[in-house]
């Protein structure tokens, strides 16, 4: 039985839906993708461009189904991109151009 609260979907402590879910305890090596995302986040933090709090807020705003479907670092990329767009650090036009070129 869940506590009957208006919790956000990232606030997972004790949530019934996951109480019977097995934990995959096998080792998972980080991919190049993972490490690059992690590194960019650290650089943005070190340069005062984006805080870890903003990253978290962005992750928490990912709709519930996507939140659970996306891998950990894919959530980060989605959040980081959204935050950087919101703050005007990058523009959608710039990203679209890069996507087309890439």
């Amino acid at each position, binding site marked *: 039985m869940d506590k009957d609260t*208006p919790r956000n979907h990232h*606030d997972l402590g004790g949530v019934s839906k996951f109480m019977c879910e097995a934990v995959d305890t096998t080792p998972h090596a980080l991919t190049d993708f993972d490490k690059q995302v992690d590194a960019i986040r650290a650089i943005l933090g070190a340069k005062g461009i984006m805080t870890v*709090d903003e990253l978290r*807020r962005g992750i928490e705003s990912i709709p519930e189904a996507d939140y659970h479907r996306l891998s950990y670092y894919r959530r980060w990329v989605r959040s980081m991109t959204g935050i950087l767009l919101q703050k005007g650090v990058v523009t959608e036009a710039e990203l679209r151009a890069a996507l087309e070129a890439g």
Partner: protein
Amino acid sequence: MFAPGTAVRVKNDWPETRGPAHIRTPHYLRGMTGTVVRHLGSFRNPEDLAFARPAAERALYHVRFAQPAVWGEGRPGDELQVEIFEHWLDPA
């Protein structure tokens, strides 16, 4: 300032329901009563940092809760210990 050993109650408040918010007080502790273990220092309020707003430093406490009291299940004696900001705590 809460001294170690002080009984405190976590506010049963839900800012998430009033608009975009970034809250670091877990849902399962809201309205629960615990005991202050120690003052961990003062840190800038993540609720504001998350929106790039000016963020004042707030006192942070380690607060201990009894497991069975929080969940209505669990082994007596087992505990939860969680970092909670001062503005989320009232004397119990």
